[in-house]
Structures are given as C-alpha cells and as structure tokens.
C-alpha cells in the first residue's frame, strides 16, 4: 500500500470514528429548545400539519439551514432526521479540516487535524444537535480553505469562491459575519499577497449576492418578516449578559480539550519559515470570533464552534512537529511519533466525547450542550393524552418550545417578559396568567427542573398557579441520579398539571 492509499484509509477511519461518535445514542434524548425551534421553523416552511401553525417561520436567523431541514421534514418529519443532517454537516467539516490542514501543513498534520476534530467533545456534542452552528462552521471552514488556496496560488477565483462561501456562512447564521473581520485582518497582515482592489470588490460583491436571499426573502415575505427581524435586532442589542466573563474558558475550553489547545499553541509558535501565511490566517480565524464573542454580552456554549477547525489544524500542525520516528524496539519498524501521539490524544478525547454524550445533567441544562432528558417523553404524552388545541403554560420558553414541538400543543412561557425590549420577539408573553387560567384559555401548567434551576421565582409562581387552579399532576417525568452517597435517587424533572378555573 503506497503512502497515498494509507492516507486514504486513515482518513476513512477518521470519518468512521467521527461518524460513530456522532451517531451513537443520537436519538436517546429528545431535542432541546433551540433544536425544537429550528425543526419547528423547518416544519412551518414545509407546512407539516400541526407544527406549521405553532412555529413562526421568521424568528432570529437566516433560513438556509431551516430550508434544508424543511426538505428533511417533508420527507421524514421526525427529530432524528434533523439530527442526521447535523451529523452530515459535522462529518463534512471533519473532512474539510483534513483538507485544509493538509493544504497548510501537509498530510500528517491534515490527518491529525481531522482526527482531533472528529473526536473533539465540543464539535461532537454540537454537531449531534440540530443547531445552525454546525453548518455555519462547515461553510466557514470551506472559506478558510479557499482563502488558503488563494494565498498559495494567488488566483483571484479562489477569493471569489471564498466570498461565496462566506456568504453561505452568514446565510447559515448571521454571526458568521464576524469572519469578515478575520479575512480583513489576514489580508491586512499579509502584505505579500498584493491584493488587487478589483478582486477584493468582486469577492465582496459575490458574498453580497449569495447573502442577498436573507434580506430578499424578508422583503418578499412582507411586513411579517422585516418587522420580526427588526424586533430581534433591538432585542439582541439590549439583552443582558447571561453568563460570567469566564464562561468560555471554563465551559468551552475543557470541551475542546486542554491538550488540544496546548498543541494549537505549539502549532502557532512554529518557526515562521515553516508556517508563513498559515499562522496569520489561522490566528485571525480564531482570534476574531474569540474576541467578539468574549465581548458580546450574550454567551452560548455553541457560539465558538467556528474556532474548532482552525484550533484542530494548529494542533495537528503541532503534533506533526514531534520527532518523525519513535524507536521503541531496534528490531522492529519504528512508530511515527506524531501518529502515536495523535491516536493517544484522540482516544482520550473520544472517551470524553462519549462521556459528554452519555452524561445527562442532574436537572441541569446548558443550552447547546445536548438534549433535555424527559422533554420529548413529556411532549409525546401531551400529544397522546391532552385534547388537541390545548394550551400549556411552562416556567420558561425553553421547555415551551420542546413541548410545543413534541406535544403539538401551544405552549407559553411564564417568564417571557411583557416588555418587548426584554424578550425574544418570537415569544408571546402571558400578560395575565390568572385571567388566562380563570377563563380556561390555559389547560395545563408544567413545572420542570431545568427552568426551575434558572429561576426560583418563576418556579414558585408556576407552582402557585397549579395550586390555585386545582392543579392535578397528570404526568411526571423522572430521572434517576446517583446521590453523593452513591445511592440511586429518582427525582421528578417534569411535572404536568391539569388545571381548571
């Protein structure tokens, strides 16, 4: 087997491993709130009965991913179908990371980069979910690759293609626009590229053309689309911080892997003769999103996924720096040290990724980190046991989204602010819960441990309403945890109360 064939086999093995980690137990836990929203939007686009009336098409983001999901929902309107598409995006990103690493640092670094991303807990966890960040990262990595091609052979067609790819990045999720600054930083810090203004303008125009569907579809959709987007912008700009400043270092850092980060630093510190423009390009691709999202008051576990591929590429380059052969036994063929280290590191990351897949939280939930145990089951119970047209009131909008998707019943979050400046414009506030309950507009009240953990105030409120309106617990979802003493403890995580005036 020649070297190229060995690389192909290694790449196939990496993709298989990445696929395994992304597919194992994929449907074990139901959708979380964001996933339910995106699949709900897709269902609305595809006019899936029941769901189309419950989820508005226009919410916060552009609709490229939701449009693709709409095709999936048309063919198979089930949650797992959306997740399979997310996995496909994730694996495509692994492949592109390999290609980009190979382009920038050679085959070994490419393989190492692909392997690290394939098993990186952060990327595994996020690309198992129906989120926009997975597709956005795929197109961002494609843009990175195309920009690297441009830097290598200076042909403007790569720049135009990179512009188009960046357009798709932003069409997937508007936060991808921050990479424009990364491109600018790279071009500005790499004077040897001698960029022509005409090429830059054409690339920008290409990006604008690809991006045009976003404003165009809003305009064609009329007032509904544009007003919703304006409201969303106002809301985003006035949101209060939802996490402490150290959220990314403490939540995302370990999910990427501290060793991977260390290797990435080593890759970044490669001598200039070995790294050239690569260092600038990757550093810009990591630094700009990192700084932007660190400064942005609203933080999310999945927001930094953009930096996972360049971090993996730098780590791959760092790994490839290890001495070429590690001779364990003089009589036998020496092992390549980089390969051995990569396999060991990948094994360690893979175990962590698997633990992250298996490890539902004890009544806790971090947005973007996985599904919500019990949510699907509670929703399906409602679909089977509550009258059509029922309305529920939950503690917050997150559980409302999940129950609305699975239960196909309208769900309202009690904590949604009546002040339009303080709420996601897609959500409807319950302005007078007593009135709604007294007049029979709301028939079920739902308490859940995840939302209760976020707000004891609204948790107590929802229990008070259940009590006041003759609440009767008609369904309870429980989870079994291991107590500090090692004993299994079963606790309710979702309780559905039937209420009446």
């Amino acid at each position, binding site marked *: 087997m020649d070297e190229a064939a060995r690389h192909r086999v290694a790449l196939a093995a990496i993709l298989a491993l990445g696929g395994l980690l992304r597919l194992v137990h994929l449907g074990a836990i139901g959708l979380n709130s964001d996933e339910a929203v995106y699949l709900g939007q897709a269902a609305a686009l595809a006019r899936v009965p029941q769901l189309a009336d419950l989820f508005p098409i226009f919410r916060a983001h552009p*609709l490229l991913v939701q449009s693709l999901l709409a095709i999936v929902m048309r063919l198979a309107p089930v949650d797992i179908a959306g997740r399979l598409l997310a996995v496909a995006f994730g694996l495509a990103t692994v492949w592109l990371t390999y290609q980009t690493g190979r382009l920038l640092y050679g085959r070994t670094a490419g393989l190492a980069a692909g392997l690290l991303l394939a098993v990186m807990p952060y990327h595994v966890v996020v690309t198992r979910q129906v989120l926009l960040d997975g597709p956005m990262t795929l197109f961002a990595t494609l843009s990175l690759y*195309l920009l690297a091609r441009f830097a290598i052979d200076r*042909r403007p067609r790569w720049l135009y293609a990179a512009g188009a790819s960046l357009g798709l990045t932003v069409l997937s999720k508007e936060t991808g626009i921050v990479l424009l600054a990364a491109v600018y930083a790279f071009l500005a810090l790499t004077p040897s590229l001698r960029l022509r203004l005409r090429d830059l303008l054409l690339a920008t125009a290409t990006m604008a053309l690809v991006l045009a569907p976003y404003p165009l*579809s809003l305009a064609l*959709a009329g007032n509904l689309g544009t007003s919703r987007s304006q409201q969303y912008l106002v809301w985003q700009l006035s949101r209060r911080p939802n996490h402490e400043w150290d959220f990314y270092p403490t939540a995302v850092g370990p999910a990427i892997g501290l060793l991977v980060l260390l290797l990435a630093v080593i890759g970044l510190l490669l001598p200039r003769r070995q790294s050239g423009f690569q260092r600038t390009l990757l550093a810009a691709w990591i630094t700009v999103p990192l700084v932007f999202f660190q400064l942005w008051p609203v933080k999310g576990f999945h927001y930094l996924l953009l930096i996972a591929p360049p971090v993996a590429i730098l780590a791959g380059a760092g790994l490839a720096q290890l001495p070429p052969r590690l001779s364990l036994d003089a009589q036998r063929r020496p092992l390549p040290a980089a390969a051995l280290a990569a396999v060991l590191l990948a094994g360690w990351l893979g175990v962590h990724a698997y633990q992250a897949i298996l490890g539902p939280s004890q009544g806790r939930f*971090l947005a973007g980190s996985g599904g919500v145990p019990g949510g699907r089951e509670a929703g399906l119970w409602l679909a089977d046991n509550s009258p059509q*047209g029922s309305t529920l009131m939950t503690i917050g909008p997150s559980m409302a989204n999940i129950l609305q998707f699975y239960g196909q019943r309208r769900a309202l979050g009690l904590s949604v602010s009546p002040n339009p400046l303080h709420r996601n414009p897609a959500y409807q506030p319950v302005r007078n819960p007593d009135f709604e309950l007294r*007049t029979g507009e709301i028939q079920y009240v739902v308490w859940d441990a995840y939302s*209760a953990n976020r707000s004891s105030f609204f948790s107590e409120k929802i229990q008070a309403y259940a009590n006041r309106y003759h609440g009767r617990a008609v369904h309870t979802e429980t989870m079994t945890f291991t107590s500090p003493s090692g004993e299994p403890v079963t606790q309710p995580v979702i309780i559905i109360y039937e209420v*009446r005036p």
Partner: protein
Amino acid sequence: MKRLSAGLLAPAILLAVLVTTAPGDAQTGSDPEPNTPIRHVILLMQENHTFDNYFGTYPGADGFPPGLCVPIDPNDPGDGCVEPFHIGEQPIQDLDHSRRTHRLMYNEGRMNGFIHALNQLNQNGELAMGYYDDRDLPYYWNLADEYVLFDRFFSSAAAGSFMNHVYSVTGGPGAGRDRPTLDGLPDDPTIFDRLEERGISWKFYIQNYDPEVNYHDLVEGAPRPPQVEWVPLLSLDRYLQTPELFAKITDLDEYFDDLRNDTLPAFSYIKVVGASEHPPGSLLAGQRITRSLLQALMQSEAWSSSAFLITYDDWGGWYDHVPPPQIDEQGLGFRVPALLISPYAPRGVVDSTTLDYTSVLKFLEENWDLDPLTERDALANSIGQALDYEQEPRQAVIVPSQRYLGPAEQGPNRLLILLPYAAGTLLAVGLVAAAFRRSRKSGGPPVGNEP
C-alpha cells in the same frame, strides 16, 4: 451551571403528591353495559334562543332564507317589514316567550307574527329579527365547525322554560302549565326513574345550587327562584323526599370533581343558573362556562365514551323561520340551537334530522334498553343517529374561544422564501465548483510542507 436545589424540588414534589392523592367521591362504576360506545351522556340546557338567532347565517345550515323580510303587522302588509339584522353590541331585553306569544308568532304556520306579537305587548318587536353570528358566538361556531350542529332541533313544547324542562325529563307536559306552582308536578315517571330501575348512575348538576329551595318556597306574585323554574325535579315530592334521589341533585362543582375522580355518572343533566345566556345575559359568560364544562370533560377519562349535548330550553321570543311540526297539542315549539360534541361525532356536520328534547331521552332509552316514558319519546328520533360508531374515537379538540377559520396565518408564500435561498446557494456552489474545476486542470491542490 447551578445544581438543582432541593429547595426548589421539594415543593413541586409535595404539590404533586398532594394533588394526585386528593380524595374523591366514590361513584359506582357498575353501570350496565350500554349498546353503543357511549357510557356518559351529558345534557347542558341553556336558555332562550332560536336556531336562526344563533346560527341563522352559519354556512351550510338551514338559516335565514334569502330576501327574508318579516312584516311588522301580518294583517297589514302596508306597515312594512323588517329584515334580519346583526345585533352586535346593541342592548337587548327579555322578549316575551309565553304560550300565547308562541301562538301569535307561529300564526298558523305562516311564521310571520314575531314582530307583531311583541309589539302588542309593548315590547320592541323588531328586536326579534336580530341575530348573532361568529363575532358574538365564536366558541359555539368553532364547535359547530368541529362537531355536529343540528338545524332541525325543536323545543318540545310551544311554550316557555318550565314546560320544556318538564318535557326534557318526563317526555310529557307535566301538569300542562308553563310555570312551577305550589301544587308541584304530577308524579309522572322521569328518565331518572328509568335509570334508577336499571341501576344506572345519574346526577342533576345545578350551578349555585341551594338544596333548601324548591317549589314549596314559591310565593304567589313574587319572582320564582331560577332553580325551581328550571329544575323540574325540585317540583316533584318523590325526589325531594327520597334521600337517595335528592342526593343526586347536586351543585355543579361536583361535575368537575366527578370528572377528576373518574366518577362521572352515565347521565348528567346540567343546569347553569348564572351564565345561562338568558337575555339580556352575557353570551360571553355562557360560552365561557360551556367551555369550562367541555374542557374538563375533554381532559378526563370520560371523554372517550361521552356525548355532550348543548341546547336551549325555548326560543326566547326570537325569530326562527322554520315552522315547527305540530305533532300534538303541545308542540313542537320553535327550533333551538343544538350542538353534539363527542369522540364519535363526525367533524363539522350539519345534521337535519328532526329532533327535540325527547330525542335525548330516546338515546338514553336505546343505549341502556330503557322503557319509553311517553308516546313522545317512543316516537322521537334519537340524537345518537348523528354519531358514527364505526369511526375511530376522535381525540378531543379544545376549540379556541376566538373565531378560528382553519390555520389562522397561512404565512408568507414559501416559494418566495425558498427560491432566493436556492438561488444564493446555487450561485455559491457554482462559483466554488468552477474554482476547483479550473484548479484540477492545472494539476490539483498543492500539499503543504510538513513542519
């Protein structure tokens, strides 16, 4: 990320335990097997409206004929006529609905004496031509869209509330009087007697029920307590003096308890006193209480084997254009609105079978092999003929209290959204593919140097 605190969880668990273990009345679950899947029949008797008054403009129903104009004085066509008009927010009054007024309005089948009859009593006769529609009755119209609307459901007697209520429980006119008196009612058998004989459970639920008030408390010339006017059992000594029977006349609150405890009887007769829609009462309040009664049923175990009939005890002085069949000296009376809600009800059907209150008795008799009470119920059509037992029992549908006309917001044209995205994506894919194609011609991608 914080751990779930025990302080938050404990009250929830406690509440769950408390509310799931609430004690309830023990209702016998030993009713004989019915002949249909219907094990629970619920009759809600509201007050004083005609079919045309509520559903005269409902699409597909036998509503106002085109070009209708009812003469102000049928004996003097020169006086002009009045077309049906939407009442909306206009103030209304309790129009006279006595036997005499019924006769004048009926006018030997010409159905043209409505305005004149009221004018003779110094009432605003033109008001009889007023109607409501889905702006005023969104909930009932939504129910009609979802379940069965009867447009040939007549009041049993050409009279007012009391006699029609008597018909609804005995199949006959009682003493032939249209109001309760200090003499009480003759000891005719009632449908409840028939149910008792077969050991079948029943209850008469009354809103704001006062067990101390019955026909003995009537005072000549004084206003009659509504529960005596509308609950014939409170004029029957047998029911007042037999504790087992009297215990089954109960407050409406028990209806909700029975649903929760899965002890709803086989036959429930519901009389709402406060929100009965009796003019000039609030239609909104009536729809609200009906909604709460129905929703409680839909959320209960009883739903899957239930049939809930909403109807009205007399025409209330309002216009209706269909001459009621004259089957005996008492009636029938003018049409009243009637809706049948059941998991076996076909969706959005207008049923034109001739029915009256004794059609409910007929259904009970057929369902549990009971003997008829009178010739009326023996010959009546059953409301059960509207139910389709071959269809899978339908999941309950809580219809909204606002008018619902299918998916409210069809939303924007999907093509206008999807096409721009498809075009943008194709453009990008084309540009990237073109770049790779030209690259392949020139020898494929370079491979970076190993560091």
